């Protein structure tokens, strides 16, 4: 039932919203007044600085030689060489990972599905104390064997819920700071509780899967959330 009103409708709504936003923005005090209203905490400044650092820096400007256009033949040759290099690199990485896997299997007796690393020095991640309160999943994630300082812990994670059709993504977040590292019996731990909105996906079994990306490595942990009485 779309008609010619559709376009003017969007335009009018846009115009109205823009006008309201401009009115609201005009009510914000000038910058010099805002500056004296609030001093940002050190934690905030550090977090933003970290976030900024995670964005790659601008590369230096190209020189004259680089600016020159390569001939089409050279381009094809370069592309071919790159593809070959990538293939060699992939093959090399694959062979390395197979070797590593073999050595892990030999030394590990028990294999916990939620623990991804076999190396003693690498971290392990577990999701526990999960409970579902008013559609929000309260889950405590523990990072074990964390050796660097706590501020460098900045994992991103994606939550999945088990539905009839399989695992369905619920949401993803990026944590700027997990918390303080605590040392217990020689191990470094960081434990942090997250509240995640699960309203987007209905899971009859309360079965969830958390995937964390931490220091370029993917970790996975399955767990069941309890409904507190």
């Amino acid at each position, binding site marked *: 039932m779309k008609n010619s009103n559709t376009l003017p409708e969007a335009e009018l*709504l846009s115009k109205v919203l823009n006008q309201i936003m401009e009115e*609201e923005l005009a009510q914000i005090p000038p910058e010099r007044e805002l500056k004296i209203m609030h001093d940002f905490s050190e934690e*905030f400044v550090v977090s*933003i600085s970290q976030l900024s650092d*995670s*964005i*790659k820096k601008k590369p230096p400007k190209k020189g004259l030689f680089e600016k020159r256009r390569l001939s089409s033949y050279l381009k094809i040759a370069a592309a071919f060489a790159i593809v070959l290099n990538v293939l060699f690199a992939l093959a090399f990485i694959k062979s390395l990972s197979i070797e590593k896997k073999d050595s892990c299997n030999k030394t590990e007796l028990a294999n916990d599905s939620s623990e991804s690393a076999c190396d003693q020095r690498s971290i392990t991640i577990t999701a526990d104390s999960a409970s579902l309160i008013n*559609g929000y999943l309260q889950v405590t994630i523990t990072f074990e064997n964390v050796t660097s300082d706590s501020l460098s812990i900045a994992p991103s994670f994606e939550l999945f819920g088990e539905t009839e059709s399989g695992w369905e993504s619920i949401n993803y977040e990026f944590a700027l700071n997990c918390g303080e590292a605590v040392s217990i019996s020689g191990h470094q731990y960081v434990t942090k509780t997250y509240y995640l909105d699960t309203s*987007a996906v209905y899971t009859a079994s309360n079965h969830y899967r958390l995937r964390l990306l931490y220091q370029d490595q993917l970790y996975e942990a399955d767990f069941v959330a309890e409904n507190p009485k």
Partner: protein
Amino acid sequence: MLLFLTLIDLPEDKDKFNEIYQRYKHMMWYVANEIVVDPHLAEDAVQDAFLSLSMHMNKVGEVTSSQTKKFIFTIVKHKAIDLLRKRTRQNEFLGDTYEDLSTKQDLLSDFIHKDNYKALLICVKKLDAIYRIVFEYKYVHQLTDKEIAKLLNVTEKVVNVRIFRARKKLQKLLEEEVGFHEK
């Protein structure tokens, strides 16, 4: 398919991000604090807003432009409302449960025309903040439902539901407003 969060890595984005931080951080804090009325929580909202921004730098144009200022304004409002909602432990403001989104119920187009501009202005101002934010993302910042879903950390279905409800709410307000003036 797993679509994991990845940080932006376009070369100019770092400079742009830093410029936005320097230019708008105080304004962002003020906007957030007006909503949450808690200086520390407002700081958290600003932090969340910067995180979102860092992932959507491709949506940011000229840093000094009014469009960018408005985009940042919308994001920080949305993050402040989100934090407030989480803090008060209220569930989704309306549940966001899926419902019949048939266009039969959507008569908003009938009420939106130039003659009703003033009424529309009044009614949009009356809209709940969370509805306004979805409208701002859609009609001011021209984001797709998919992009809005990514920003709001919800599924596209939830975005559809919110837009649908926002339209219904606006329609109801307009019915009341226009009817009131006609009497």
